């Protein structure tokens, strides 16, 4: 149900004439459902923004929320729901903030008892419904992006790349490795090799309960990529079950060095680089 041009201008008139009353009652109605979790001043400012947005839209002859004239109103609404979503309010609480306007409008229009007022009210209410649904949608979108952000942060947290020794970095992997995480680990490990100029990397999978073909492939690709860059990877902490899986899946680890524990791997690497330095010293002496 869309607003006619006349209804739109009547809405603008109504909102402008009773500005003080509308914002006051609207704020009160929302405050009830918020139970003091939002300051009165902030709430009032939000309501004033909404009120202004609606006046701007209706003065331009808004037909429905999707139309050109409502772009500013939509911006105000998404701003509101973004804020609510981030502050941890529920979707209902957010939508109710908009729906509360219906009660306010009803109060204002009750005195006009002709049939036109009823039709107007229904049209206004339809617009408010659209606004409410729009709030709902932006709320969900905000929450989704919040969740995605958190998942990413978790990914960052769970994949530390540490420097073990001069020229040796390690990634202790803990928890289930899915394809996305394996990829992040791979990229970060390789970047750390460049940043620290370390020619050796140890991937420790002691804390990984299981690997599937895809994850094993990711680890293998990391090792090959590191080699292309001029660094050596050693895999340590392969559990018996994982070793069985690797063999059962027919994954070729080829000439990749594997060690039982992180300590063994470090010893192996130090021996490799130690031999080199030892030889060089020997040469310098000679």
């Amino acid at each position, binding site marked *: 149900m869309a607003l006619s041009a006349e209804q739109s201008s009547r809405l603008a008139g109504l909102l402008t004439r009773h500005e003080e009353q509308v914002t006051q009652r609207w704020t009160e109605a929302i405050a009830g459902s918020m139970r003091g979790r939002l300051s009165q001043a902030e709430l009032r400012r939000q309501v004033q923004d909404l009120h202004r947005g609606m006046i701007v839209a209706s003065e331009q002859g808004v037909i429905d929320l*999707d139309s050109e004239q409502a772009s500013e109103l939509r911006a105000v609404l998404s701003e509101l729901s973004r804020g609510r979503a981030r502050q941890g309010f529920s979707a209902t609480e957010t939508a109710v903030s908009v729906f509360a306007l219906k009660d306010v409008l009803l109060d204002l229009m009750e005195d006009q008892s002709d049939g036109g007022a009823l039709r107007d009210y229904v049209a206004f209410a339809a617009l408010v419904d659209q606004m409410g649904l*729009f709030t709902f*949608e932006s709320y969900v979108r905000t929450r989704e992006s919040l969740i995605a952000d958190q998942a990413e942060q978790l990914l960052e947290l769970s994949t530390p790349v540490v420097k073990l020794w001069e020229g040796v970095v390690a990634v202790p992997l803990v928890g289930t490795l899915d394809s*996305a995480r394996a*990829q992040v680990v791979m*990229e970060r490990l390789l970047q750390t090799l460049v940043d620290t100029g370390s020619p050796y990397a140890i991937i420790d999978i002691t804390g990984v309960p299981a690997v599937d073909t895809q994850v094993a492939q990711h680890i293998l690709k990391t090792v090959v990529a590191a080699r292309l860059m001029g660094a050596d990877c050693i895999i340590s902490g392969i559990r018996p079950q994982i070793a069985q899986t690797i063999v059962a899946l027919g994954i070729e680890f080829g000439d990749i060095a594997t060690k039982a524990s992180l300590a063994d791997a470090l010893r192996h690497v130090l021996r490799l680089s130690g031999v080199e330095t030892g030889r060089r010293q020997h040469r310098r002496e000679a």
Partner: protein
Amino acid sequence: MTTGVDLGQPQAQAIRSDEDVVRVRQLVRTVAVAVKLSLVDQTKVVTAASELARNTLVYGGGGTVEVSTADNGRRKGVRIVFADTGPGIADLDLALTDGYTTGGGLGLGLSGARRLVDEFDIRTAVGEGTRITVTKWSR
């Protein structure tokens, strides 16, 4: 409701020389950066474009490329269409096999490029030409 920003018209580019292959790479990179592909994905799609542009030049006898942004509602991406009116590919399965080449290359162009992108579509007819469409989506 407004959906995403339109990044503009598809960018067309002729592939007639070595330098054009370089231009294709730069063009694809610009679009890949604009749709916010990760660095690795940018590198993958630019590499794939480089392989396919060279194929268009060497095997197709030159042709055109069209680079545009794609949007499936959830993610944005880069879509690249390579078209030539060359001899076409007689045995597609063979051409898509790693290591198979008729041009003295490494035989990784087609098969490798396919692994670097998310969507790969190839249409070819002997004597009429080849048209390859690839898409890489942002994560």
